[in-house]
C-alpha cells in the first residue's frame, strides 16, 4: 500500500492554504502592510471554511477515521504521511480555524514588522493544524516542533511585559517537553517490533506489553503535559501568556495548550491504554491540584492578563481531570472542554487586547468603570468571564458538567474539591468584572472610543460560536461520541 487518497485531500488542503499563505506573504514587499493583512485573512478564511466543511461533512453514522490521506514517506523507517479526521480531532481542527481567523482580525491594527508577524503566525498555525490531523508519530512530532519555534519570535518581538524572559522560558520549557516525547516515539517504534510510526498500526492490542506501556506513558504524559500546562509544569504558561501579543495569546492559550492535551490523548492514551489506567489516579491528583492552584494564585493577581492566564491553568486542569477518569463521559467532556476553553480564552484575550491597546494598562486598580466608556468591548469580556464561570447557555457549561459528573463517580473527593474551588473562582471573577467594568471610572480613559463594528467582528464570531454550542451541545458531543465509544469499547479490560 503506497498510496490511499480520499477523492479530495481536504486535510492537506488546510495545510496547503497555510503554506501558500506563508509563501505569498514572503513575496509581498514589507511596506504593503494592508495587503499582507488581506492575504492573511483570505488564507486563514480558506482554512476556516475547509475545517467547517470537514466538521459538517464527517459521516457520524460510520464514525472512525475519515478523509484519510496516506503516503509512504521514508520506507526503511516506516514513516508515512498519514492524516485522518475523527471525532477527537475534528473539534480541535475547527477550533484552530476559528481562532486563527479571529486572531488575524484581532491584529488588524498591528503596526511594525507586519509582514514577519503574519508569516510567523502562519507557520505556527500550520504546525498546529498538522499536529491535530496527523496519524503518524514522526509527523506528529515534526508538526509539534513546527508549532513551537515561531512562538519565540512572536512573543519576543511583538510582546509586552518581560517579553524576552517570557519567550525564552516558554521556548525552552516546551522544547524540554519534546526531549521526552522524541525518545518515547522512537521507543514505541522499536519496542513494538513493528518499526513503524503509524499510530493505527501501533494501536493494535498486544503491540506493546503492559510494562512498556506504563513506561512510555510517563514519557508522553510528562512531555505533552508541559505544553498542556499540567501542574507543576505550568510555570511557563502564565509568563508566556502575559508577554505575548493579543492574537498570539489567543492562539497560544486557545489552541497551543490543546496541542499538549491532545498529545496526551492521541499518543499517550491511544497507544498506551494500560499505562493510562495505571497512572490515571496520579493524573487526577495533578489535574485537581492544577484546578485549585490556578484559582488560588489567580485570586492574588492584579494584572488582568495574569488573571486570565491562571484561569487557563485551572481550566486545563479540568481537561486533565476528564482524561484521568478513564470513562467515556470523561473523555467526551475533556475533548469538549478543550474546544470550549479554546474559544472562551480566545475571546477573553481578544477583548482584553482591545482594552489594553486603548488604555495601555491591564492592571485592575487602574481601570474601573470601563463599561461606561466602552460598553461593547466590556460586554465581550464579561460574556467570556461568565462562560469561564460555567454559566449555562455557553459551551463550557456542558463541557464542565460532563467532566465533573464523571469525576464525581470515579474520584468523589477530588471532584468535590475541584467544584468547590470553581465556585470560589466564580465569586472572584465577578469581583474582577465589578472592579474593572463598573464602579468609579478613571478620568483618563473617559475620552476613549468604543470598539467599532469591524474590530468587534472577531469577538462577535467567538461569542456566536460559544452560544451555538452552548444551546446545541449535541452538535459536538455526538461527534466526539462517535470516536469515544469505539475507543473505550476496544480497551483491554
Amino acid at each position, binding site marked *: 500500500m503506497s498510496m490511499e487518497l480520499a477523492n479530495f485531500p481536504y486535510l492537506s488542503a488546510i495545510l496547503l492554504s497555510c503554506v501558500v499563505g506563508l509563501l505569498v506573504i514572503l513575496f509581498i514587499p*514589507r511596506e504593503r502592510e494592508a495587503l499582507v493583512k488581506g492575504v492573511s485573512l483570505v488564507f486563514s478564511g480558506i482554512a476556516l471554511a475547509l475545517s467547517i466543511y470537514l466538521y459538517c461533512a464527517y459521516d457520524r453514522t460510520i464514525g472512525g477515521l475519515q478523509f484519510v490521506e496516506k503516503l509512504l*514517506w*521514508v*520506507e*526503511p*523507517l516506516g514513516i508515512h504521511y498519514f492524516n485522518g479526521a475523527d471525532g477527537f480531532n475534528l473539534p480541535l481542527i475547527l477550533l484552530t480555524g476559528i481562532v486563527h481567523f479571529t486572531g488575524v482580525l484581532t491584529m488588524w491594527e498591528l503596526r511594525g514588522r507586519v509582514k*514577519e508577524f503574519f508569516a510567523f503566525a502562519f507557520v505556527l498555525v500550520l504546525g498546529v493544524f498538522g499536529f491535530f490531523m496527523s496519524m503518524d508519530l*514522526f509527523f506528529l*512530532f*515534526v508538526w509539534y*516542533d*513546527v508549532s513551537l*519555534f515561531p512562538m*519565540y*519570535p512572536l512573543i*519576543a*518581538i511583538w510582546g509586552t511585559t518581560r517579553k*524576552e524572559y517570557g519567550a*525564552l522560558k516558554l*521556548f*525552552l520549557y516546551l*522544547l*524540554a517537553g*519534546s*526531549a*521526552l516525547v*522524541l*525518545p518515547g516515539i*522512537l*521507543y514505541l*517504534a*522499536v519496542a513494538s517490533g513493528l518499526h513503524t510510526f503509524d499510530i493505527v498500526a501501533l494501536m493494535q492490542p498486544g503491540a506493546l506489553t503492559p510494562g512498556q506501556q506504563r513506561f512510555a506513558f510517563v514519557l508522553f504524559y510528562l512531555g505533552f503535559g508541559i505544553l498542556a500546562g499540567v501542574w507543576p509544569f505550568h510555570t511557563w504558561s502564565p509568563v508566556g501568556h502575559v508577554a505575548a501579543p493579543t492574537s498570539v495569546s489567543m492562539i497560544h492559550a486557545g489552541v497551543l495548550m490543546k496541542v499538549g492535551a491532545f498529545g496526551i490523548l492521541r499518543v499517550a492514551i491511544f497507544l498506551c491504554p494500560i499505562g493510562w489506567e495505571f497512572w490515571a489516579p496520579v493524573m487526577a491528583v495533578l489535574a485537581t491540584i492544577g484546578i485549585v492552584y490556578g484559582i488560588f494564585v489567580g485570586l492574588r493577581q492584579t494584572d488582568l492578563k495574569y488573571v486570565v492566564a491562571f484561569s487557563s491553568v485551572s481550566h486545563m486542569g479540568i481537561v486533565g481531570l476528564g482524561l484521568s477518569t478513564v470513562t467515556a463521559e470523561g473523555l467526551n467532556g475533556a475533548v469538549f472542554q478543550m474546544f470550549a476553553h479554546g474559544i472562551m480564552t480566545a475571546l477573553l484575550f481578544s477583548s482584553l487586547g482591545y482594552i489594553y491597546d486603548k488604555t495601555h494598562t491591564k492592571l485592575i486598580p487602574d481601570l474601573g468603570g470601563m463599561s461606561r466608556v466602552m460598553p461593547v468591548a466590556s460586554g465581550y469580556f464579561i460574556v467570556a468571564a461568565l462562560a469561564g464561570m460555567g454559566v449555562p447557555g455557553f459551551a463550557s457549561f456542558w463541557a464542565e458538567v460532563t467532566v465533573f459528573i464523571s469525576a464525581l463517580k470515579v474520584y468523589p473527593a477530588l471532584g468535590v474539591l475541584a467544584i468547590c474551588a470553581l465556585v470560589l473562582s466564580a465569586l472572584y471573577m465577578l469581583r474582577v468584572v465589578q472592579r474593572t467594568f463598573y464602579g468609579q471610572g478613571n478620568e483618563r480613559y473617559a475620552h476613549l472610543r468604543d470598539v467599532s463594528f469591524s474590530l468587534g467582528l472577531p469577538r462577535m464570531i467567538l461569542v456566536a460560536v460559544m452560544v451555538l454550542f452552548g444551546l446545541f451541545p449535541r452538535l459536538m458531543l455526538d461527534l466526539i461520541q462517535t470516536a469515544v465509544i469505539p475507543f473505550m469499547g476496544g480497551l483491554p479490560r
Partner: protein
Amino acid sequence: MKWLIFGPEIYFLAVAAVFLILSMTRPNRRRDFSAALFLASLGVAVTLATIRLEGSLFHGAYRIDLFSQLFKGLLSVGFFLVVCLCSSLSGIHEARHSEFYLLLATCTLGMMLLVSSLELLTMYVALELASYSLYALVPLRSGGGQQMEAGIKYFLSGIATSALMLFGLASLFAATQTTLISELILKLPALLNTPMAFIGLLLTLCGFFFKLALFPFHIWAPSVYQGAANQVTAFVATATKVTAMAMLVRLVSMGNGNTSLAHVLIALAIVSMTYGNLVALVQKDFKRLLAYSAIAHAGYSLIGILSMNPTGYAAAVFYALAYLAMTFTCFWVVVKIASDGRDVPIVQLAGLHRRSPLLAMALMVGVFSLGGIPPTIGFTGKFLVFNAAMERGYFLLVLIAMINVVVSLYYYIQVVKAAFLLAPDEELPPIHLSAPATILTVVMVVVIVVGGIWPSHLFELARAAVQALL
C-alpha cells in the same frame, strides 16, 4: 581507461598545479578568484560524473565505490562552496591568495585519497597530506596575532594525535600482520578482545576524533575557529568534519559490533555533547560558539556510528551531509557580515533582519537546523541517528542526547534573538547581495528545508553507500 576511476583525484592534483603556477606570477585577486570558481565548479562536475564508478587500484589498497565517491562528491561540493566564500577574501593578504587556493586544493585532494584508501599506510599518508595543508592554511590570516596561536595549537595537537595514531596503526599491524583493511575486517573481530588490537583500533580512531574535534581532542577547535580566516574556518568546519565522519564509519565498521568499543564511544559521545553544549552557552563570539557547537555535533554524529548497524552508519552519512549544508550556511552569513574579514561577535548580528532580511532568514534556518528543529535537515539527521541508537536499545543515550539538544537551543536562540530582535548600537548599512550570492543563499535555505521534509532519496543514497562499504 582504468585510470578514469581515479579522475577526481587527478583533477584536483591538476588544480593544485594550476595554482602552484599562478602563485609564481604577479598576484591578482580577481583572476585567482575567477580561476578558482571555474575550476571548483568543474571539479564538482568531474566528481559527480564518477559517482557510479567502481573499481580497485594499487593491489587493493585503494577502492572506488559508492561510499567513497559519495564523500568525494561532498568534498568537491564543499570545496566549491568555500571558494564561493572567497569573492573578497579580505582576511588574507592578496599576495597569498594563490597559495591559499593551492593549499585548499591539496587538502581536498588529501581527503579524497583518504576516503578511498583501504590500507593503513595509504590512509596515514593521505591524512597527513590533508593535515599539513591545513597546518599551513590556519595561520595564513593577515593581521592580529591570534592566527599564530591558533596555528601553533593546531599543529602541536595535530602532530601529537598523529603520533598516537601511528602507534595505533603499529599495534594493529602487530596484532593482525596486515595493513589491508579487507583483511583486517576478517581478522579483527576475533582479536578485539586482546588489548593490543583493541588499543590499536582505538588509537587509530583518535586521529579522526581529532579532525572531528571530539572531546578530549577538541582543544584546538575554539582557537582555530576564531583565529583562522573565516574562509579557512568554514573549510575546517565542513569538509574536514565530513571526511572524519566517513573515516570513522569505515574504521568502526571493522569492529563489527564489539560492545567494549561501543561503550568507549558512548562515553566519548556523551562527554563531547555535554561539554560542547555547556561551554557554548557562555560564548560571545559567533565563530567560537560554532566551534563548541561542533564539539557537541561530533558527539551526535558519533551516536550513529557507535550504533554499529547499517541504519546507524547510513544515519551518520546522512548526518555528515546535513552538517555540511547547515554549517556552511552559518559561515556564509558570517563571511557576508564580516566583509573585511574580521571576527563576528554575536552582538554584531544585531539588526541583521533590517540590513538583509534574506541573510537573517538564512541564519535562522541554519541555526535552527543545527539545533535540530524540524522541518530542517538537521532535525532529520538527528532523528535518524537517534533512531539507530534506539534500535540498539540505547534509550538513556538518546534521552541524554535530547536533553543536550534542548540545552543547545538556548545558545542557538541567542543568535536568532540577536539577528531578529536586538537593536544595533549604531545604524549599520544594509548588506547588498549580488545576484549569484542571493541565489546561493536561497539554494542553501531550500536544501536545508527540502532535505528535512523529503529525506527519502538522500537517505536511500546513504544506505546504498553504506551497503557498498559493508
